[in-house]
């Protein structure tokens, strides 16, 4: 395990210059589409302009395990889907017509092959890594059309520069000796493996990246992924473990604030946090959540225009970690003051005996005014709110277990 001394060896990136919050007038989308990835396929829910009526398009890839389905906001038509099946290896599918037709990546994310015969240069005994599944997809910077990032399980970062057709490992992370110690192996992480997730591209700077590893911390690169440094100060770890050990940090979901790219929000295994750059110390703002609910959960969503507003969907992280809605009463919580206070939002959601939860990729916001929120549950229900969580309605029931929910706007 990494020591504090080893962690400190990674040079801290220079601090970014703070910038004024970006506020833009809401531009109402003609149509919102909600992209739902599940354990047994994908669905697209097309909304009308009022977000009242929804049309289900699916299943796509029935029977495939879909970890993430993302529309490229740079062209408004390219969809990437991270897929595998129970028997077959992982791949990425690509559509340029909103899912009417799909083509498979010609070179999906895969680790480099390790020679069967150990070389004299130090690979003796090393076993080559194998991508079990691509877990996370992030479109690249607006100035780099065609660039995408993928996070995998076990931990690996990959980049495509041709719209997802071919993928290459990001060696600056995957092969860094320190990161190799912090990354999990097949025996680590969540029940279905350690995840590299929350790949974030700074909208002001294509070279400035963040990512999260469960477990393995939050990390930052200022050179397009050539080098990385941990960004875990202030984050807590499970009682009894040493927070100086990077591998013990478990960010569940990290979000960059669209209206202020210097603000990061994080739902962690151990609380809800906020970080205002150039600061390097996360502040646990979840301490102000109701004590009987706590501040454990998987997803987090940030308001597209208000840096102080964010939503979480807590789960039961007590005792044996049931990972269900707390008390069987699901609810979102919102802060509108940067985490000082939180308000419960449960109107319309089941009042009791609902034991589902929401995974880290399964909560999303649209850009409407008021903001629409979308939540996919582990029991296959898709819930939506057209009023920032004040009232929830169920858009779909009886889907497979939902792994990811994303939104996109179609002109």
């Amino acid at each position: 395990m990494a020591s504090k001394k080893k962690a400190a060896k990674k040079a801290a990136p220079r601090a970014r210059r703070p910038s004024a919050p970006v506020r833009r007038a809401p531009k109402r989308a003609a149509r919102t589409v909600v992209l739902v990835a599940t354990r047994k396929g994908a669905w697209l829910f097309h909304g009308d302009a009022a977000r009242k009526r929804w049309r289900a398009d699916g299943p796509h890839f029935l029977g495939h395990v879909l970890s993430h389905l993302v529309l490229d906001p740079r062209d408004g038509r390219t969809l990437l889907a991270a897929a595998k099946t129970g028997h077959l290896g992982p791949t990425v599918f690509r559509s340029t017509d909103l899912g009417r037709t799909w083509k498979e990546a010609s070179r999906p994310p895969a680790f480099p092959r390790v020679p069967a015969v150990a070389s004299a240069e130090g690979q003796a005994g090393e076993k080559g890594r194998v991508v079990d599944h691509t877990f996370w997809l992030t479109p690249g910077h607006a100035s780099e059309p065609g660039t995408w990032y993928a996070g995998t399980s076990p931990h690996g970062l990959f980049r495509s520069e041709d719209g997802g057709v071919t993928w290459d490992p990001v060696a600056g992370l995957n092969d860094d000796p320190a990161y190799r110690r912090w990354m999990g192996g097949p025996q680590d992480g969540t029940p279905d493996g350690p995840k590299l997730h929350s790949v974030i591209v700074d909208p002001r700077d294509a070279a400035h990246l963040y990512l999260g590893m469960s477990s393995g911390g939050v990390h930052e690169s200022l050179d397009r992924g050539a080098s990385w440094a941990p960004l875990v100060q202030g984050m807590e770890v499970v009682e009894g473990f040493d927070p100086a050990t990077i591998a013990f940090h478990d960010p569940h979901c990290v979000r960059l604030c669209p209206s202020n790219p210097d603000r990061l929000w994080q739902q962690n295994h151990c609380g809800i946090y906020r970080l205002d750059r150039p600061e390097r110390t996360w502040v646990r703002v979840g301490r102000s959540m109701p004590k009987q609910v706590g501040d454990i959960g998987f997803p987090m969503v940030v308001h597209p225009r208000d840096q102080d507003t964010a939503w979480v969907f807590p789960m039961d992280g007590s005792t044996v970690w049931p990972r269900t809605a707390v008390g069987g009463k699901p609810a979102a919580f919102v802060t509108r003051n940067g985490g000082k206070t939180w308000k419960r939002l449960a109107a319309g959601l089941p009042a009791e005996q609902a034991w589902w939860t929401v995974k880290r990729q399964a909560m999303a916001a649209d850009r409407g005014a008021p903001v629409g929120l979308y939540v996919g549950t582990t029991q296959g229900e898709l819930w939506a709110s057209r009023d920032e969580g004040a009232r929830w309605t169920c858009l779909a029931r009886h889907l497979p277990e939902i792994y990811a929910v994303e939104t996109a706007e179609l002109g």
Partner: protein
Amino acid sequence: MQVLIPTPLRSYTGARLVEAPGTTLGEVLAELDRRFPGIRFRMIDEQEAMRPHIRFFVDGEQTFDLSRPVRPGEALQIVQALSGG
């Protein structure tokens, strides 16, 4: 040689039975991938290991060896393993 394709891979071949020449199992799989791009990686990982739930039978005999010779007249069956459910 004649290759029996399991249902999870028929989206690539569009057929239950296909022909692919080769003198070893590895060559046959390479030829399959040439004709049906992407199919090999779904069966063989980046370290050249067979994926856990895919099995290969040459002339009725299970093999885990990509260098296993194949002879004219033999058939390759690719099977999705019964993995407990």
